[in-house]
């Protein structure tokens, strides 16, 4: 028994030292999986872009259950992978626990904050991106009414709504911004039927552009908007392709850039909080072949102008989560 334990210990030590020499970065996807057409796929794109450009390799794993989070992180840390990038706020708890056990390994969490000396927390200024699409919505609207449909009623989603309303009102101070939340339970993220009906309700109140920040519920919003002949705005990843020619644009969070930057910095990565906003291409609008015809030159000019002003601090987009209030929209 003792022999076995010693032997195992020796191989483990060997494995650690052998792994440490490699120092490949690692990427841990969340439960949605690598090809979820959203968050995780964006992370995957960033990693492959890095691998293609540098010719280096990286390790990755797709989780199958919540229980594997900690296990996967420990496996990579012990194998010497560095830095280890995790995608999604669900990694906050496991990272809090294990980061201190591997002080020489750098961890990155996208979309969450972990207060440990060897963790970089990447968060996005969603309100700034929402401001940009709010401007576009107001310019595309002919009725003077635009809508917002959120998923679960949480501060993060109100942050989207607040930035959107501020952006819309910057273009047209008299514009009406309708705002509805799908619900107050996690089921609100996956209720496209209710998303559709909320869209119908907003259309009957005069809205002709709706912005959906509602996860799976947003699929219903985009669908109904397309069926009823109004414009919609997607969120998180580029959703323009879902209803080609009917989605004005998408407010994208550049998770791929976050992953790319982390891999690029390697073991020398800066820890602490890393804010991705419009100033460092962290959030933005999506323009591709599906919505080119909808985006006018004035919109592009206004968005570029606002980007510059937000980056320079001339325009300050209100962050709902900073004080739990919103000057441009009543909830």
């Amino acid at each position, binding site marked *: 028994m003792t022999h076995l334990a010693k032997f195992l210990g020796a191989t483990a030590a060997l494995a650690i030292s052998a792994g440490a020499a490699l120092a490949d970065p690692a990427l841990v996807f969340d439960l949605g*999986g690598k090809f979820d057409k959203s968050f995780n796929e964006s992370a995957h794109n960033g990693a492959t872009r890095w691998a293609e450009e540098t010719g280096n390799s990286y390790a990755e794993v797709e989780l199958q259950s919540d229980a594997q989070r900690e296990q996967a992180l420990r496996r990579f840390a012990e194998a010497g992978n560095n830095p280890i990038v995790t995608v999604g706020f669900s990694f906050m708890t496991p990272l809090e626990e294990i980061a201190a056990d591997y002080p020489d390994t750098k961890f990155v969490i996208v979309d969450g904050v972990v207060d440990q000396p060897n963790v970089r927390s990447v968060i996005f200024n969603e309100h700034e991106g929402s401001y940009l699409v709010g401007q576009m919505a107001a310019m595309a609207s002919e009725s003077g009414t635009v809508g917002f449909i959120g998923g679960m009623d949480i501060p993060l989603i109100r942050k989207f709504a607040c930035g959107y309303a501020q952006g819309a009102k910057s273009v047209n101070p008299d514009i009406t911004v309708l705002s509805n939340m799908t619900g*107050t339970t996690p089921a609100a993220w*996956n209720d496209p039927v209710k998303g559709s009906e909320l869209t119908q*309700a907003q259309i*009957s109140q005069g809205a002709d552009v709706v912005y959906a920040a509602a996860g799976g519920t947003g699929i219903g919003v985009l669908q109904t908007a397309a069926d009823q002949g109004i414009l919609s705005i997607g969120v998180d990843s580029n959703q323009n392709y879902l209803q080609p020619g009917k989605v004005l644009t998408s407010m994208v969070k550049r998770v791929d850039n976050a992953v790319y930057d982390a891999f690029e910095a390697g073991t020398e990565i800066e820890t602490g909080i890393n804010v991705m906003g419009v100033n460092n291409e962290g959030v933005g609008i999506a323009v591709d072949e599906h919505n080119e015809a909808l985006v006018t030159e004035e919109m592009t000019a206004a968005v570029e102008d606002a980007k510059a002003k937000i980056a320079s601090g001339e325009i300050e987009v209100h962050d709902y989560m900073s004080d739990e209030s919103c000057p441009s929209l009543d909830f």
Partner: protein
Amino acid sequence: MDFLTLLQVLDTTIRLATPLLLACLAGLFSERAGIFDIGLEGKMLASAFLTAAVAAVTGSVLIGTAAGIGAALMLSGIHGLASITFRGNQLISGVAINFLAAGLTVVIAQSWFGQGGRTPQLSGSARFETIDLPLAGEMRGDIPFIGPIYAELISGHSLLVYIGLLAVPVTWWVLFRTRFGLRLRAVGENPAAVDTAGISVVGLRFAAVAICGLLTGLAGAYLSTGLQAGFVKDMTAGRGYIALAALIFAKWRPWYALGACLLFGFLQALALRPDVIESTLGFEVGVQLLDALPYILTVVILAGFVGRAIPPRAGGEPYVKER
């Protein structure tokens, strides 16, 4: 609230009430035969997925619906096997079906289409189109009051809405006017008596569970191909449970079920229009309260404040011939 807004809210009511109604009638058949069915939610979900998936692959919503009904029937079969043949606990079997459907749909969708547990967006003949009833366009403008009601409210729904509404009188007729219905109700009240009369308890209960599968299959198909154009994970969003609440609210009767589902649908439709509530009542009503009302009303009914809801007497108990 002006007339047109009222019509819009009622129109939404019908759309939201239809999946509840189909699921509620499904539960009615099953529970009247003495098989409690918590698994309505799971069966709807499985059907919603397979309908959308097969419709996406074949391009035909009818083939999709047939597949969806097949999926719901299969889960019904599992429920029947567990709770009728093997005399297991009906509630546990139902809960298991819900979990099974919630997990399997996403896993299969992911490996089939690779779009994050979704099916592709459907278009054209892969969706149930809305049906404009004859003369709807002419009546809208020509006849005051009745015209808009006919054109906006009654016309312009998908086929499954009309099937759902038609299912109410059919259910009533089958349960209360046919020999099969009498036996089915008897098997839920006193299976021993039915057995004594030489009629198969197991056969009747399986028939009831199969009808339940058929109706939940239609409900799921309506969700993913009538109201939506594709499947999204967990898209039933608790409608199976609201249908169960409606079933209790309706005291296990078909016409009452129609009323209960329309009422619950109306509450859901109102919750979508906080502006209308405020302008009509003059004060704000929390959306959460409206969402919770179906459950509150059901508890009130169950507590016996407004009439009494008496479930089928042999409900929930497996039938054992000899002890």
